[in-house]
């Protein structure tokens, strides 16, 4: 296998996203998670360029860990966390307070 470059692909280069089931471009994967890279971006792009090396230069060690070493939430996981958030939202509304911050 040819040695890969650390230079990222064009923002418009597309691959199929295994989570969405459709095409996405690199620019999306770079900011998918509230402006941070998708947790799967490392592996998804690993065969196209030196994704890990690239993101390590882009992010601090702590940011890298937050982006890539935390849990990639499954649909079920995300669902139940969202239930807790929505319950908090109702509670805040009943108290007449502004909605709680997300996340």
């Amino acid at each position, binding site marked *: 296998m040819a040695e890969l470059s650390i230079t990222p692909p064009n923002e418009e280069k597309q*691959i*199929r*996203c*295994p*989570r*969405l*089931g*459709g*095409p*996405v471009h690199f620019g*999306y994967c770079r*900011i*998918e*998670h*509230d*402006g941070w890279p*998708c*947790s*799967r*971006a*490392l*592996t*998804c*792009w*690993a*065969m196209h360029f030196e994704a890990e090396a690239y993101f390590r230069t882009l992010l601090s060690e702590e940011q890298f860990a937050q982006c*890539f*070493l*935390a*849990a*990639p*939430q*499954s*649909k*079920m*996981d*995300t*669902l*139940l*966390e*969202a*239930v*807790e*958030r*929505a*319950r908090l*939202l*109702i509670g805040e*509304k*009943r108290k007449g307070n502004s*909605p709680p*911050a*997300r996340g």
Partner: protein
Amino acid sequence: MTVKIFLNEDEIPRQWYNIAADMPTPMQPPLHPGTGQPVGPDDLAPVFPMNLIEQEVSQERWIDIPEEVLDKLLLWRPSPLYRAVKLEKYLNCPVKIYYKNEGVSPAGSHKPNTAIPQAYYNKVFGIKRIATETGAGQWGSALSFACSQFGLEAKVYMVRISYEQKPYRRLMMNTWGATCVPSPSTETEAGKKILAQDPNSPGSLGIAISEAVEDAVTSEAMGRPPTRYSLGSVLNHVLLHQTIIGLEAKKQLAKTGDYPDVVIGCAGGGSNFAGCAFPFIADKIAGKEIKVLAVEPTSCPTMTKGPFLYDFGDTVQMTPLLPMHTLGHGFVPAPIHAGGLRYHGMAPLVSQLVLDGLIEPRAIHQLETFSAGVTWARTEGFISAPETNHALAAVIQEAKLAKEEGKEKTILVNWSGHGLVDLAAYDAYFQGKLQDYELPQEEIENALRALEGFPKPNL
């Protein structure tokens, strides 16, 4: 030679098969990470109607399919069982290959098998409206169709990037009367917050789920009609509804005098695989010799390389710990052309059956799966969904194995859906843009280290 084996409408199965009743190892309940206690109905009640929650935890072997559900399923069910005679001839192996064609449903996949009963149970519970999220739209379109059949309002939060790039399933949803909005939207607090930060946000599955759940949980407080949420895979009741596939197949095979030596399905969240395989696994539990293969991508090896642990589902440890096959938090799947094969963890029921030795997991490289899909299209004619191609690749492997062994075998595969809305994936294959990727063992071991010290289920 007969190519299609049909059942009359009055031969449609009238009960679903609940494998939980026959599990050699009883299922362990999910644990709440906050309390360490089993998750109860109250934890799920804000999002699911109680009749579905009862199915989720049921230990009854057979559960009646309501007449109202059967009436809707009869639109396309019983689905035909095909004998893949042209593929058999092409392979020239000593095998009979049967496939259950789930692509004949209105939405083109197996998904409506659970969307219809979920819509029904919501309706009889008094729910008027169902909210869900969708990526490229396979589940959203299936649920939209189901809601239209029961006069329910469907609200689908579709990840904006897919909403803009993949209009076809969105148009299917609209045609069935659903409201499909790009997520993030201005209709939920979660969506508004994201848009306030970035008006051009392309969205994500996580945001869309947050919006759909918020929509459901806050519906009454916000003055909307009673609303619940719906999920198309992973959960026990979803797998239960899908067993109609295998139950029909058993009746159809009985008409041919054949019984499968091998049952094959692709497994992402596990629902289509389980739907076809579970009724045959019941026979295996009773002593029948049968090989049951769950096929997954080499790049996302949850079953073939992942151990069985209680996995923390999220970073803030707010959600239940489900016993699942997992590669741990740090696992990041490689790109795969398999829309449905995207779950971090396999369905707990499937995981336990793997552990019990009743299911054999197998991982296949994506280039091999597309090669199989093209062979299938050029012999049997149907263009398969990318995830379905995983199962077809295993069919070809098993056929060749039978030849090597000099044994005659009967193979049953679940053809879970067509790929007519996923042709871009085939285009990428033909243009040589796809590559195989196998997760390095070192990477797997690093991911699993994150799980050291976590509670493990009793095995």
